[in-house]
């Protein structure tokens, strides 16, 4: 909805910088993957920057944010250091999760980015749990939970929305409708393709935003968060967008036509927002380029930082499996390789 007014220039520029950083970061991550610096699955959010930045912009620093395996962008938008996000992709000790989680499992507690989760639909109940804590503890923190169109078919979707409504939890559920769950298109996986209405029967009203437009995404998310926070009414927001790359790096994309991708790429959120900022005199062409160069430099530094970070020590393999207590008797582990883990051995 291009008719929404621009936010104050400083805000608009920050959003544009954030979107540019995500775009450049994702491109570089993909490149590093082909150089085998990054392993596992790599799901890029190229094309989805407006949905990420607009939604995150509506959050307070104390609000909780939770997303999926496609969430480098969410971490960056929340303010995680790009070097630490990249180091996680590289599986290094300075990664956000010390190399334990990888691309699919980002997490930054300090910034209340409560994780990327590899199991489709697995994050919805957790979001309701964050909401329960806020409610229980009597604060006015809200939670924003992003998940995909495909995830809206998981049992946890209906179960979580029902409970969130029943218990008046301050949670905004945002279905990022990029119109595909892997290689299966929306109309082939969901009987109800108007996803914003999918929560109504559970007592969760729906809103919709243009996920290719950062301003619209921000405005709708902000309103949804207000309803959740002030009226204690969970809301479902459908953000319609499109991913420009494959589901993950290894995706031949046989399930959609090149024309369709081309058609959507005309609505590239980075391009259209940048054009608008220029058209309305917020920035000029040189500034757009400077912002881009700055993002590229930041990503360069992130790669250098990740490259310089050591691999985790083999002896750290068993760190954090348990909170080890001196008070507990007995063996935690059946494995002689776990140094500190055969707790209670000395007691036997």
């Amino acid at each position, binding site marked *: 909805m291009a008719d929404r007014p621009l936010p104050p220039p400083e805000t608009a520029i920050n959003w544009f910088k954030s979107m540019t950083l995500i775009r450049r970061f994702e491109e570089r991550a993909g490149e590093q993957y082909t150089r085998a610096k990054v392993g*596992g699955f790599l799901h890029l959010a190229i094309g989805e920057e407006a949905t990420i930045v607009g939604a995150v912009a509506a959050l307070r620093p104390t609000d909780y944010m939770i997303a999926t395996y496609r969430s480098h962008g969410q971490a960056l938008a929340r303010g995680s250091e790009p070097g630490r996000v990249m180091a996680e992709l590289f599986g290094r000790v300075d990664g956000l999760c010390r190399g334990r989680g990888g691309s699919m499992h980002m997490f930054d507690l300090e910034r209340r980015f409560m994780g990327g989760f*590899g199991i489709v639909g697995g994050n919805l109940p957790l979001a309701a749990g964050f909401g329960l804590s806020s409610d229980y503890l009597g604060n006015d923190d809200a939670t924003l939970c992003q998940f995909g169109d495909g995830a809206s078919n998981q049992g946890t979707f209906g179960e979580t929305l029902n409970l969130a409504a029943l218990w008046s939890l301050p949670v905004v559920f945002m279905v990022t409708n990029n119109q595909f769950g892997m290689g299966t298109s929306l109309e082939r996986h969901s009987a109800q393709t108007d996803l914003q209405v999918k929560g109504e029967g559970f007592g969760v009203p729906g809103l919709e935003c243009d996920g290719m437009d950062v301003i619209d995404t921000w405005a709708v998310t902000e309103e949804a968060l207000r309803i959740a926070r002030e009226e204690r009414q969970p809301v479902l927001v459908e953000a319609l967008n499109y991913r420009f790359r494959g589901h993950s790096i290894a995706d031949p994309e046989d399930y959609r036509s090149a024309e369709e991708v081309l058609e959507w790429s005309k609505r590239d959120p980075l391009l259209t927002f940048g054009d608008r900022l220029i058209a309305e005199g917020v920035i000029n062409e040189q500034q757009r380029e400077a912002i881009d160069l700055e993002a590229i430099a930041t990503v360069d530094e992130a790669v250098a930082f990740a490259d310089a970070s050591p691999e985790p020590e083999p002896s750290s393999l068993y760190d954090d499996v348990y909170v080890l207590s001196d008070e507990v008797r007995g063996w935690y582990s059946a494995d002689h390789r776990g140094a500190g883990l055969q707790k209670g051995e000395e007691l036997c």
Partner: protein
Amino acid sequence: MAEMRYREALNEALTEELERDPNVYLMGQDISVFGGAFKVTEGLMDRFGEKRIRDTPISENTIVGIGVGSAMTGLRPVIELMTINFSLLALDQIINHAAHVRYMFGGQVSVPLVVRMPQGAGHQLGPTHSHSFEALYLHVPGLLVAVPSTAADAKGLLKTAIRDDNPVIFIEHETLYGQRGEVPDDPDFTVPFGLAAIRRAGSDVTIIGISRMAQTAECAAEQLAAEHGIEAEVIDPRTLRPLDLDTILESVAKTNRCVIVEEGWPHGGVGANLAALIGEQGFDDLDAPVGRVTGVDAPMPYAKNLEQISFPHEQQVIEATLALFGDRKRALRG
């Protein structure tokens, strides 16, 4: 004999069974247009159509439940779960219904269902995507569990699984899909359940390898022979339930030592179970405690260097085997 990849062997088994029995149908995420996340079902949609090759939403528990319901009423569903990790979402339907329906209704119905899914570490997929769960499914009475490690077994066991009237948990391995092997041409070729394969004959120690670890065990055995003069007998049980315990016990009676190799966790693992059975049934034949080589007792880390030391390789199998001999030598000397 024809040489083909493990994934092609599976595809052939599915094709032949779909052709043989009109009540066999396939269901899973991205199996039709996409051809399956690991391309096992490639081409089947074109050949058999959408009625029999059904794409589903991401709804694991319900997909399996629908499979159970249709199996109770005359069909023979073969479900593909994208990976074994996601079968955790379907555990309710798999255990409470697929495994128990026949028993709890006094044998009035059966559940001829196959749930196919790959497992295994080594691809840097982190804690949620690297599980090995044969022990979990072995635990459940009512389920059968197949763990093919070769292309021929993949085909032969899958055909048997589809024809069997019990629910079968059919565990494939992600790193084996691209491996080639000789597969018999005969369209009636099947591999019976409950028959272990002796991959290598030997007289000094029995090494039992589960799923991909059967191959790791075989490689370790070659090195043990070449470098240590130890002749290992390598056994691939192929199905964990039913289990060919006779072949295992006969081997142990001959070798007097046994090592079990699996990718999963040690606590309550397949090795723990087999060691108990061998201890109970073959105690007098053992010269040393049954050895186990397992994945580490921790979630699977993402970092490559950590992941690589988190599941068994040949070297650990060799060390575990040598330890059994070391102990004996010490015992003799002592």
